[in-house]
């Protein structure tokens, strides 16, 4: 067992973990942060994406199934549960809701965390840049169409239509 401590969604935690324990399992099973989920064994799906960074530093998105809990020792983690403050949704959460960018919602925590990271790096991404930026996150329900719209909306850019009623060309 190894002693680790980290800040997760603003609260400080300390625990003893097996060195093999994955960060996602630490979050889910030890801290009850079940908003973050596991979708695969090969770090393809991105459902477990969280933000990880040094205390006070710039966090980056990571697939928490691909990080050992001990690797996060001393760092700060933000999960989907830590995004809303005082009842106010994060703009990306709000955009996912308004643009119907989720159906079953299983990929959504990871998709939102990755979208935030993408916009942090590139505040006004083109559709192609959004698609490339979300390449590591699988969604089986939405066909990505409305996820693209949500990221466009959150970035304050023009949003693709979800349906067209008149010929567009």
């Amino acid at each position, binding site marked *: 067992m190894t002693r680790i401590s980290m800040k997760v969604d603003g609260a400080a935690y300390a625990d003893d973990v097996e060195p093999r324990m994955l960060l996602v399992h630490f979050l889910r099973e030890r801290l009850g942060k079940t908003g973050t989920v596991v979708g695969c*064994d090969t770090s393809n799906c991105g459902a477990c994406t969280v933000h990880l960074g040094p205390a006070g530093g710039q966090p980056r998105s990571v697939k928490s199934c691909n990080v050992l809990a001990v690797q996060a020792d001393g760092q700060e983690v933000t999960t989907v549960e830590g995004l809303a403050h005082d009842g106010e949704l994060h703009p990306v959460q709000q955009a996912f809701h308004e643009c119907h960018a989720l159906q079953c919602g299983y990929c959504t925590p990871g998709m939102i965390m990755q979208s935030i990271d993408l916009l942090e790096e590139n505040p006004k991404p083109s559709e192609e840049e959004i698609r490339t930026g979300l390449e590591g996150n699988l969604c089986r329900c939405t066909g990505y*169409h409305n996820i693209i719209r949500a990221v466009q909306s959150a970035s304050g850019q023009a949003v693709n239509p979800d*349906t067209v009623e008149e010929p567009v060309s």
Partner: protein
Amino acid sequence: MTVTEDRPSTGPAPEIGSARARKEDQRLITGRTRWTDNIVLPGMLHVAMVRSPFAHARITRIETAEAKATPNVVAVLTGQDVKDEQGSLPNAWAITTDQVTPDHPSIAVDRVAFAGEIVAVVVARTAAEARDAAELVDVDYEELPAALDLREAAEADAEHGVLAHPDLGTNKSAFWQFDSEGAGTGGNVEDAIATARADGIVIEREFRQQRLIPAFMEPRSVVVDPTGEQLTMWSATQNPHILRFLLAAVLGMSESKIRVIAPDVGGGFGGKLQVTPEEFITFMAARRIGKPVKYTETRSESLMAAHHGRDQWQKLTLAATGDGTVTGLKVDLIADLGAYVALVGGGVPVLGAFMFNSIYKFPAYQFNCQTVLTNKTWTDAYRGAGRPEATFGIERMMDELAHELGVDPLEVRERNWITHEEFPFTTVAGLEYDSGNYEAATAKAKAIFGYDELRAEQRRRREAGDPVQLGIGVSTFTEMCGLAPSRVLGSLNYGAGGWESASIRMLATGKVEVVTGSSAHGQGHETAWSQIVADRLGVAFEDVEVLHGDTQIAPKGMDTYGSRSLVVGGEALVKAADKVIEKARPIAAHLLEASADDLEFAGGRFTVRGTDQGLAMADVALATFAAHNLPDGIEPTIDADATYDPVSFSFPHGTHLCAMEIDTETGGLTMRKYACVDDIGNIVNPLIVAGQVHGGLVQGIAQALWEEAVHDDAGTLVSASFVDYLVPTAADTISFDVAHTTSPSTTNSLGTKGVGEAGTIASTPAVVNAVVDALRPFGVDDVRMPCTPERVWKAIHARDGADTGGAPTVGDASPHFHEADTADPSTGSAQRRTASISQEDSQ
């Protein structure tokens, strides 16, 4: 466009037709979710499965002592331990009375029939300890030959070839036929083919529907709690009610002792309609040990052991006159059931039997289906279930017919489709289509797509010999939704009915609780059902709470699959709401001191006709709750239940158009544009509908271009992770042009038709038709799915007689039907193989 006829004419803006953002989003975007794997109970134990690495083998010894002796391991179970208890997993649909249905024990007892089958179960304090101990279970196998090739398996018998289950003496499970002459719905198909061979066109093709994996994002998970008098099961299932019934029936218990809860469920697409070994095993383990038990599968387990879909060989023969009027269609298909006949596995191809004739007026039709057992993962419903396979077959054939005739593929469709004046129309498969307008959907799709402009560009590129060729693919589809009229299901030997149930509880505060027997797992029922009830009862959208997915809260239901929830469950809701109004009417009349006959109900209020007197539904609800002043003999409740059995299927349709760019030097494929116009009848929530279409499209496109469950020569699934099973990413896909036309269904009061499967059913042939269309100048008339760059490149080069590696793809590419079968000059196959770019310009 979505206003129902009898919607109140006054009151707030209608909810039906409004693009309401979903109620269920709040918990999903903030992580306040209740996935089954999130559930933790006191004393809960964890299960790990020991699975067979062999596709077919006899189990000669299982040594569990070391695993059992490991600290924190509570139990190890084998098939021998539970053989008197476990029974056989249920098959609910024997498609014929003589269907061969092998026993399917949850834990294999002495033989395994596919790689991934469970042979032992470890129960331990933590999931990690259970998995560690599973490694210590030592199983000796005597490997047996495995039946892996579908076509070979179909030919095998006790003397020749390999049997998936040697004791059965055959791999053939059931043969199912529909013949229009026999059914009295049309003519003799052999006569039609013979006539066309003499004077007309006969097209024969063989298509492969590859094996797919539903690949829902949430891995399956089940928790069983035996605490108390009931066993409570949480499961990531589409089917809590069916699951409860079958657990009780197989294990010999009363349903009343079992409660099944489907909490938040992360997608299904048919893949979670199965009643699974893992559910039975977890249930049996909890019952034996007396403690809560959880099992959550890994992704690899999910891909290898949760049921697969599709997997057919289709041989199609289409007869037509010289002007392209189809005179007959014959379908011979073999369908791979895998190792066992799954819950409705045998019935999936039968659902397709009614759809090969699609939107067309075929005078003669015959459908022959042989279901076949192999040593692969069992197959069952995957989004569309039989209908995508049928739609693919016929839409590919219509393109082939157009090519033979040298006309536009839409022209040949128009020549054969049912015109909008002809509804209701009884098809050659015996179904009555209630409404539709194929002309309108096609005209709109062409306009949105820019069809004529893209055809012109295609011509220019062909003439210029552009290395990047443009292909345009067409799919005009229909489907049968709203499963299903119980009598029809009975006539098909299905084991259950197709009704749906709804309850409406009028709370004293004026709020409304709606209980539905359908079980959402991403479809947005909480939102759409609130909209329907809000309109019907004139209450606020926010005041409606929808409850579902728990057999104790929603005791009756037939669950969610087959685009049935709105068409059947929504209609049940309407009927329950109407009963609420009728129960409230005499109470309102009493309170208003008026005659019930003089009351009108609109906008949530009862009013006395010709006066300004009125009473809100909320006031009636409160007065009923108090029950101080009710008419004599009136029950003090205005709550109501309804169970609705649909009178007919519903028939959404649409026109889908796809433009693919193909780099003929590399075989690389790029989707340029995809436009679709779906007619799904009246729309309750356009936002939800668009989402269903988008997601459906990508699943269908994925079948055309990327996904395939691939097994090696030993029967091991090699695409058993998301590294190898290519669920598309955002970077693989494009944004779509989605639109609608509206021909309301005439068989339900909401006029809805269902949308869950439309995109998947329509898109696969649209994409493949586009790929083939791009490659016509190279003499290509088929590319096997998934249309990978390698297959495309080989198809392009097959004509040159180049060494293309000898893979089956080459033979499939051009022409892949037996030479003898296409030698008839009327098929024009010789000409087709030598078609040049300039000949193609006539299109």
